[in-house]
């Protein structure tokens, strides 16, 4: 019984305060160099997308995010975090290069970042972080037209 009370108390406590800002983290890029989110955090609006090469909806979303990244290149940074296993690194690199995508691709094979923000593991999972480093938008999945929601959010944030 004490365990049940503990779980519900924790849920109630944390649910009642409900805030967030993105903590610093770093991951490797596909060229092997380290990328720290602090390089862009607070300087640009950040779109983070968790994806994998085997996920078709993820690939459609990547194309849309690339378009958004180009359109808002001065204000928005797109980070595509691959949750593929390490055995697929070469596949990731060739996929991104073949499409000519300009956004930054990060590798998270050990789920140390996606495990925090997307513990359910369902992809694609999208987050938007504003200039005050706050997570202002999260969404699971992609169906055509979802990019409109992202554009609306970006427009709302850039109009401020």
């Amino acid at each position, binding site marked *: 019984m004490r*365990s*049940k009370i503990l*779980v*519900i108390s*924790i*849920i109630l406590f*944390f*649910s009642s*305060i*409900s*805030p*967030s*800002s993105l*903590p610093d*983290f*770093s991951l490797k890029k596909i060229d*092997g160099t380290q990328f*720290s989110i602090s390089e862009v955090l607070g300087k640009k609006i950040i779109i983070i997308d968790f994806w*994998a090469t085997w996920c*078709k*909806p*993820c690939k459609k979303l990547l*194309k849309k995010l690339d378009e958004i990244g180009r359109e808002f290149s001065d204000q928005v940074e797109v980070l595509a975090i691959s949750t593929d*296993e*390490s*055995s697929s*690194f*070469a596949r990731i*690199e*060739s996929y991104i*290069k*073949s*499409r*000519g995508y300009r956004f930054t691709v990060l590798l998270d*094979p*050990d*789920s*140390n970042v996606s*495990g*925090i*923000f997307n*513990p*359910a*593991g*369902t*992809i*694609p999972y999208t987050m938007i972080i504003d200039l005050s480093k706050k*997570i*202002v*938008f*999260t*969404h*699971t*999945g*992609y*169906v*055509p*037209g979802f990019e*409109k*929601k992202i554009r609306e959010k970006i427009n709302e944030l850039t109009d401020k």
Partner: protein
Amino acid sequence: MNLQINKNILFLLIIFLLFIGSLDLNGFQAGELNFFINNKLLYNLNNTYENTGQFYETLSIFANIKKWSFNLTLRTNNYYKRAPNTTISDTNFDIFRKTIRYNSKKLKVIVGDLYSVLGHGLVLSVQKNDEIFRERTILGADIRYLSNRFDLRILGGEINDDTFDQKWRVAGGELDLKLSGNSRLGGRFSYIIDEDTLRLLGDRLTYSFNIKTNKFFSHFSYYAEIAFLDFVENSMKNGHAIYSNLTFNKSHITMLIEYKKYSNFDNEMNNPPIADKEDETSSINDTEGVRILFQYTVFDPEISFFFNIGKYREYEDNGFHIYGGVSAIDVGEKFSFNLTYGIRNIIFPIKKSDLDLTWQLSDLLSFTISSRDKRYRDNNFKFNEQDYSFQVAHAKGITLFLSYQYSYNKIIGLNNFFNGGLVLNFTNDMEIRISGGTIRGGQVCSGGQCYVLPPFKGIKFSLLKTFR
């Protein structure tokens, strides 16, 4: 700590989470202390493995203050009961994950439960695999030091397997030197101590060296790793591995060449690249292969043609695979499609085809149909798997999906799987998903989402909510 799940508690949780999800809570910061909460509630009425009424609830809380952060994932479930040969109890309530992190520009430290992959996974790969119910973590520490000239990483701890009662200890490390011209030279090791009473493999040392160069001759990148596996205690033959890839990219053309050669290279905790277009299982104890992937892409609309050919040896069997296809996004601003056909003939012959077509009726409304066919046939055995799915989606509200899977296996016989459901996404940060029927299992994409799951028969209800 175990307790029986009370249906009343479950009901209250659902109501509570729906209520919280409907609130528009404003941001709150206590000084520099910040919280991020991700909640998943899943209820399955599942008839697979004769286990009805599965319940799974995870609540992941992440808090950070300055350079410190804390992550706690609470879990209560009887979800894994269906896993065959499992040793954990039917019902659990536990602290599933706990980590403390320190993150500065040069020093990154994680203490607690962590996954760990070194390099391309040849030396160490401790992570979860949903498809086979395997949840493997290290309870220990992972320390990284990043400088302008090199990155250094050391880790160690006890490896826990959530579903099998077997223990290992591991120590590992990695040094990545930055060379001139955007190149890197790396070395890494893992030492695994077998704590199982049988000690079939005993302690083993795996180590590797690699080189990675980027943009040499402006359009090429190259990676090569050579690895060794020493069985310290027993008389098993020591193993070795070679893996390399070369990528060329210029304008519309991209080419990838991969080569692998693995011999006695299974240390139980590694996952080397398979150098195959598809994720077909492949032994790493005696295999060699090379593949070439050629892609030609035009942009806006994005249309990409690919052709992939590979030649492999696995033990005494020699074989090949050939895949080709085209994928397109936003043709005429209305259509996206993907078409792939392939033949793979290694140990046994497989033919595969894959079709996916999306028609976007308006900015928000779309129809998607997809089919997949995988068949194998020879004199003694044959199987055939077919998947068909249909989806209608409105991007600002509701997605409906239906799927039909057909399996024929000469030994097991015929199986039909019907599944359907809906996803509700009326507000950001919260999603409700209701589905029912049967699913074959594996990598599944439906309702615009992809995940890996085991075979299922019954009803699912899930609520995903992010508190921010």
